[in-house]
């Protein structure tokens, strides 16, 4: 590598190390990161971690927690709750990440174009985002799934398509403020085309708040997927936390563990991603110290 490129890489490494130093000081952020990592591990190793087949019915119905063989109890068909939670993590993480990624790609594209070019394009795109923001996401997702059927792919698409306006707005704001900065003028003077400026010059400088939003978006996506699952609109072929809560609804009097544990899993996962997003925000934002 030529010397300047090497120096640039070293700078990037230093920046990353500095970021991690700042991040580490936020105890809640570290906790959130730990939760996310544990979640990822559980999801990846689900087939080996789950003590039972989550679909396997048995004659041990409504077993309370701490029954031998069923740490978190069983449901009305004798299915192990712990196994359901372990396998359910796969759906939540898959939908969470994929939907957030979809929303990010669309949101960044729309927001960048809208913020950089301005004018009519901006006006039209802003009207569209306004429309999407007014229609309650949950109701629209519900309707789409009711009409077109459920299934992981559709869920990811629906949640992703409903979440991009927020990101687009954020990115647009960032591009609006950056496009008049000197370094962009410099790039133009150097003869760089607009597309190149948008993606290679401005985007890296704007990534920090986008990453924050990404993490918060995953949290929102997990929550939305769980909500749809609770309404009975999740994928019926895979165990999901929301679906387990739907199942628990009829048996609240008999089996509190059917509700408490899957719900706690959802809350923990969402909390983890929220904390990570907040921590990244604090580590990258030059903020005034409070108090």
């Amino acid at each position, binding site marked *: 590598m030529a010397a300047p490129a090497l120096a640039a890489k070293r700078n990037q490494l230093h920046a990353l190390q500095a970021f991690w130093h700042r991040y580490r000081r936020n105890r*809640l952020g570290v906790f959130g990161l730990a939760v996310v990592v544990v979640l990822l591990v559980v999801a990846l190793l689900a087939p080996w971690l789950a003590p039972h087949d989550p679909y396997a019915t048995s004659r041990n119905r409504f077993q309370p927690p701490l029954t031998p063989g069923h740490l978190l109890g069983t449901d009305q068909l004798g299915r192990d709750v712990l196994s359901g939670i372990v396998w359910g993590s796969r759906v939540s993480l898959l939908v969470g990440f994929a939907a957030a990624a979809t929303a990010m790609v669309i949101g960044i594209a729309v927001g960048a174009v809208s913020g950089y070019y301005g004018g009519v394009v901006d006006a039209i795109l802003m*009207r569209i985002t*306004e*429309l999407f*923001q*007014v*229609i*309650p*996401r*949950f*109701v*629209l997702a*519900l*309707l*789409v799934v*009711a*009409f*077109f059927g459920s299934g992981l792919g559709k869920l990811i698409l629906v949640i992703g398509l409903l979440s991009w306006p927020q990101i687009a707005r954020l990115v647009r704001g960032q591009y609006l403020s950056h496009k008049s900065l000197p370094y962009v003028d410099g790039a133009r003077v150097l003869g760089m085309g607009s597309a190149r400026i948008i993606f290679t010059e401005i985007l890296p400088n704007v990534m920090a708040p986008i990453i924050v939003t990404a993490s918060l978006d995953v*949290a929102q996506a997990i*929550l939305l997927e*769980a*909500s749809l699952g*609770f*309404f*009975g*609109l999740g994928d019926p072929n895979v165990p999901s936390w929301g679906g387990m*809560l739907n199942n*628990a*609804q009829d048996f*609240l*009097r008999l089996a*509190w563990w059917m*509700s*408490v544990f*899957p*719900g706690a899993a*959802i*809350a*923990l996962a*969402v*909390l983890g991603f*929220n*904390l990570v997003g907040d921590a990244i925000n604090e580590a990258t934002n030059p903020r*005034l110290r*409070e*108090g």
Partner: protein
Amino acid sequence: MPVRNAAGGTALWQYALMRLLQAVPLLLGIIVINYLLIALAPGDPVTALVGDYPAPPEYIEQVRAQFGLDKPLWEQIARYVLNVVQGNLGFSFANRVPVLDLVMERLGRTLLLMFITISAATAMGIALGTLAARRPGSLLDTLATGVALTGYSVPEFWLGQILVIVFAVWLRWLPAGGFRDVRLELSGLDLYLNMLKHMLLPMAALSFRYMAITTRLTRASLLEVMNSEFILAARARGVSERRVFWSHGLRAAALPIVTVVGYNFSFIMAGSALVETVFGWPGVGRLMYDSIFYRDYPVLLGILLLVSVTVVIVNLLTDIAYAFLDPRVRY
């Protein structure tokens, strides 16, 4: 009531009118999206307009003609818009009433629950956030922040289930669901108290998240404001610390709170749908749940439409309230 301000900007009512006019294309957009869903749905669009129900064939033919299902798309959209504007949202066979009447009735109950929830959540959130901001870094502050973080991450429907388990099943203090006791013949104050008893748990479940958001926001706004220059100036003038906090600090923090409630309205509505299902509260959310089961599509579409319209109205009111509170905002 502010009239023309010193800067020569427009008066409030003119701003309100302009926002109202801006809302019209938005409403049209919502109606069009509604129809696009109908048109894009797999199968015969008639099913989307009538519901997956054995309806009398004459009615199906009537719907087909009325919405021009064999005409070009733009004409279908135009006809649909006309129908909607006249209040024809179809007929619900599962419930045997016109969709508009059904949804409006249920929406009213949902809005009742939401109104009480928002009031309680905002009040508690401001209180908690204020307490936290007065002594930043203290145990109270940490506690309040912890509550705020949890509230933001906990799914409302799960919280509802937990509340049912604890308060209705174990402690038997409160009913597990429903609107009121149908068996007792109640009226007047007794009726309202009974309804209140039924509203308590769903309200608690729904308000936790918004209390969390409001707490965080109040705390952050207050901390930011208290460090600003005009507070410094007030203190330098010798205004008492208490006065500084309440009449200067809190007033400045009120603005973001108003907007938070307004712009989060659509999320609160979604939360309400979920909570209603847990508690069997006969509102719009419950109607959605049942209609999916009955495949009563016109009702679902009607709900989407009316809920969106409600959100637009709330956004409008929030914008106007914001303009009223912050004299810097004018067109």
